[in-house]
């Protein structure tokens, strides 16, 4: 009886088995979702942040280093019975703040309750020590150790720049795919320029964990783990003692001091006044401090040595003289009458040769020099003649590193302006122009613009008698030297012999001219040139460039002090003190130092 029923039962068994096989095949082989879920279940990705490279000064003194700081990450799904009152107490934040953080966290695009998400960032070592013992009260919180920047000195802030979490825009622009949200990135200064060298490489550890989140060793014995590679250490060309001294002198003043070693282009000091303490822009209070600093009306974040464009003033006369000699329109013996009806002048002189004209900063002389240069009679048309002359002049002046950025290893360098014929075409809206329209170029006023770094580089060129290396702040990257572009010797279009005349004149300025009272040093021959840049209606800017010693110079300096009157006062004093400090290690003229610190330059 019931014969068919055996088969029915067998069919039921077989169908069940087949259903299982198909279902298993679909979830095991066809559907990758489960494998991914399994990974996120059991594998905890732990990022090992690399140490950012350290920065030393030229004498091996540590300037920038790393200190630990701690981020608190949260895995939302592991949080149970969150006691917000206790949390606020332990972490010392308000309830509103806590609510805001939760809201922000959830709003993030990549937020997942199964993954660690940044919850509280940048706890300093002492802050972390305070909460550490209470962390076990809050399951689901994980500590991510990383490092932040610390500075041994409050100096050099503008050149060093600062580091902060990568912004959304930066992240969107990043095509390298290196950065993740929450990464630190150099935002300005050396930190930004050498970001690639400093950042190192992030490491990843894959760890297995069980259902309670307890680590159970490494995944596949660490086959996929990578070690973090620390960034390269940088050796700066900065002499941090000189830098600090310069900032000490510039306290309370606006302006800049740039000191360069002429033989290498290495920047010895780069002072921007006013500045800020770089330690303010690290750690947890970064945001609030940054708002304070960036809203400061004195603009401490504005790096004057590279970004403040001034008219060059009288110092430009040296470049004019070199250009005119090279073009053969004057000779060192050429005398031009100081005709003060054309252009104003100062001091008691009437008919100087070139050296005397530079030393006395004779305006009519250089008016004449520029006229000879721009109107050489190549063309009968005075307009056309000026165009040709200006183009030649521009080429020479630019070879001094003016009129374009020098390529210093800092971001946001301004190039200044050296006018071309095309520039005046635009400025005059294509109406004709000739020498009489543009003669104020002769004395470094008019449309010329330079930045203090270019002026220091110019001093360096004269010191080198006609060549320079691009100024730079980093002389060693890891075990290698500076970037290749800083090893390239650049020559001016001027014959080196003519620079001796400039050197003579600059020596004369300091020995017996405008620089004799505050720039002359006993032990060295200092060569310098004052500049007083018109700044109507405010007081003039005080400018001085110098190098020393005269032969085989070790240091070239440019000093700008804004609204401080004649170059012979504030700027000359500071420049000579910097030279003294660098060459001797201290000043023998405390009264000059005191004069600078008093800051009363206008009588």
């Amino acid at each position, binding site marked *: 009886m019931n014969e068919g029923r055996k088969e029915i039962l*067998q069919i039921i*068994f077989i169908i*069940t088995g087949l259903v299982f096989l198909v279902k298993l095949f679909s979830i*095991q082989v066809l559907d990758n979702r*489960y494998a991914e879920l*399994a990974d996120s279940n059991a594998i905890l990705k732990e990022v090992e942040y690399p140490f950012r490279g350290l920065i030393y000064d030229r004498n091996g003194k540590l300037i920038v280093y790393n200190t630990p700081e701690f981020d608190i990450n949260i895995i939302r799904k592991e949080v149970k019975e969150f006691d917000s009152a206790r949390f606020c107490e332990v972490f010392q934040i308000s309830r509103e703040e806590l609510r805001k953080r939760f809201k922000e966290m959830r709003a993030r695009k990549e937020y997942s309750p199964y993954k660690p998400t940044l919850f509280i960032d940048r706890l300093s070592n002492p802050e972390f020590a305070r909460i550490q013992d209470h962390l076990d009260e809050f399951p689901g919180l994980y500590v991510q150790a990383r490092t932040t920047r610390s500075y041994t000195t409050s100096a050099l802030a503008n050149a060093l720049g600062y580091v902060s979490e990568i912004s959304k825009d930066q992240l969107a622009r990043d095509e390298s795919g290196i950065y993740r949200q929450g990464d630190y990135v150099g935002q300005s200064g050396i930190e930004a320029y050498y970001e690639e060298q400093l950042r190192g490489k992030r490491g990843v550890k894959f760890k297995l964990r*069980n259902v309670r989140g307890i680590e159970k060793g490494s995944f596949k014995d660490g086959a996929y783990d990578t070690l973090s590679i620390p960034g390269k250490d940088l050796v700066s060309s900065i002499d941090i003692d000189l830098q600090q001294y310069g900032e000490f002198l510039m306290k309370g003043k606006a302006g800049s001091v740039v000191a360069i070693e002429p033989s290498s282009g290495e920047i010895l000091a780069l002072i921007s006044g006013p500045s800020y303490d770089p330690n303010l822009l690290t750690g947890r209070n970064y945001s609030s401090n940054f708002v304070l600093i960036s809203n400061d009306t004195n603009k401490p974040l504005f790096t004057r040595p590279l970004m403040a464009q001034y008219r060059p003033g009288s110092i430009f006369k040296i470049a004019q003289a070199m250009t005119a000699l090279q073009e053969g329109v004057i000779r060192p013996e050429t005398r031009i009458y100081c005709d003060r009806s054309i252009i104003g002048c100062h001091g008691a002189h009437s008919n100087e040769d070139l050296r005397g004209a530079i030393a006395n900063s004779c305006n009519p002389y250089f008016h004449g020099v520029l006229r000879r240069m721009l109107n050489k009679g190549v063309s009968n048309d005075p307009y056309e003649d000026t165009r040709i002359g200006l183009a030649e002049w521009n080429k020479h002046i630019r070879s001094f590193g003016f009129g374009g950025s020098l390529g210093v290893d800092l971001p946001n360098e301004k190039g200044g302006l050296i006018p071309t014929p095309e520039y005046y075409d635009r400025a005059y809206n294509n109406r004709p122009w000739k020498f009489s329209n543009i003669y104020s170029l002769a004395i470094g006023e008019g449309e010329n613009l330079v930045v203090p770094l270019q002026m220091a580089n110019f001093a360096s060129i004269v010191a080198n008698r006609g060549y320079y290396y691009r100024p730079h702040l980093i002389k060693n990257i890891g075990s290698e030297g500076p970037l290749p572009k800083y090893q390239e010797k650049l020559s001016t279009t001027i014959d080196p012999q003519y620079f001796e005349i400039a050197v003579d004149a600059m020596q004369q300025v300091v020995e017996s001219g405008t620089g004799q009272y505050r720039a002359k040093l006993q032990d060295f021959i200092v060569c310098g040139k004052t500049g007083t840049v018109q700044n109507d209606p405010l007081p003039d800017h005080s400018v001085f460039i110098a190098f020393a010693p005269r032969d085989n110079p070790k240091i070239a300096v440019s000093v700008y002090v804004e609204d401080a009157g004649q170059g012979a006062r504030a700027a000359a004093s500071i420049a000579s003190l910097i030279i003294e400090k660098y060459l001797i290690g201290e000043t023998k003229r405390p009264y000059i130092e005191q004069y600078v610190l008093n800051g009363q330059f206008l009588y």
Partner: protein
Amino acid sequence: MALVALGWFNIYAAVYDETVSQSMWDLSLNSGRQMIFILASVVIIMGIIIIDMRFYEAFAYVAYGIILVMLLLVPLIGKEVGGNKAWLGIGSFGVQPSEFAKFITALAVAKMMGSVGFRMDNLKNQIVLFGMIGLPMVLILFQKDTGTALVFTSFVLVFFREGMSPFLMIVGICAAFIFILTLLIPNQLYLHGGIIIALTALIILGKKKFKRIAILSIGALIIMGVIESVDYVITDVLKPHQQNRIKALVNPDADPLGYGWNVTQSKIAIGSGGFFGKGFLRGTQTKFDFVPEQSTDFIFCTIGEEWGWFGSAIVVILFMAFLLRIVFIAERQKSRFARAYGYAVVSIFFFHFAINIGMTIGLFPVIGIPLPFFSYGGSALWGFTTLLFILIKLDAHRGQVLQRL
């Protein structure tokens, strides 16, 4: 024949050893015990083979009586494990009488069916049979061990084989189907509509006898009543954890961390195995306790994760072959007792196999029953061993049995 069956068993035992030792890798205590259980089961096998075959038939009722008493005792003096009070403590090892109740009931039912003058279409006989499986079911339900209690419903397959009208089975399957459909389809009006349409179609298409129409209509009304009662059953009759298991089956993603956890994690573990699996001892999900009860009820996750589809398929196919083999053995028995017993064995194994694997891959609600020969647990292993080897013993001596049917 015994050798062939033994061969099957050995294959299972071999697979079993490996599986157990891997899942016991961080539970060395369990793996050690399981070895003892296996050795003990060999002793049991020897005992079963030595004992005269007539003993099983002769003492079926006696044993049935004893086990009922034990089941009665369990709720009173038993110890509680995992929410179920199903264990009788003997020293440090616990024994689950409900596991042994399976084969003893199988024997008793087989004996009843094999008795002279027994007819499956006799209502009185049917009632007796259902009483025989119902009694231990109720007692086991008292232990809150729903899974094991449900195993006894698998005897319906035996009854079916032995001549019971398929009507009951079909109604049961339909009820379960409609029950699940009700959960899946939120608006019950659709269901009612569907039933009325089906009813109308049947009435129009079939013979238009009054009796038939009346039966169909009553059936439809009953089904509609079932639908209406689903909510009541779910919310009022079932315990919360059982409600959740059914909800998890319908929509495991609704609360993957709460009631859906078991099924979700189990599917993740199996699903992450891929085609060839992660390799022996390399399963991350099962090794790190993401899957609960992974050495007992969710043992299949370990196979799925570490051996992939390939290994899972072998296990499934082996089980299929095993079941078909038992059917073959049962069919060649000469006594009705032995054949009924054979079907009881295959039904019990099938039920365990289907429900257990089904729940780990999310095809059935989570019901706590072990996978035969794989799951950790002494009583279950011994129960299955006894179940199987009594059949083998009976089969070995089938020549001595007179045709009684």
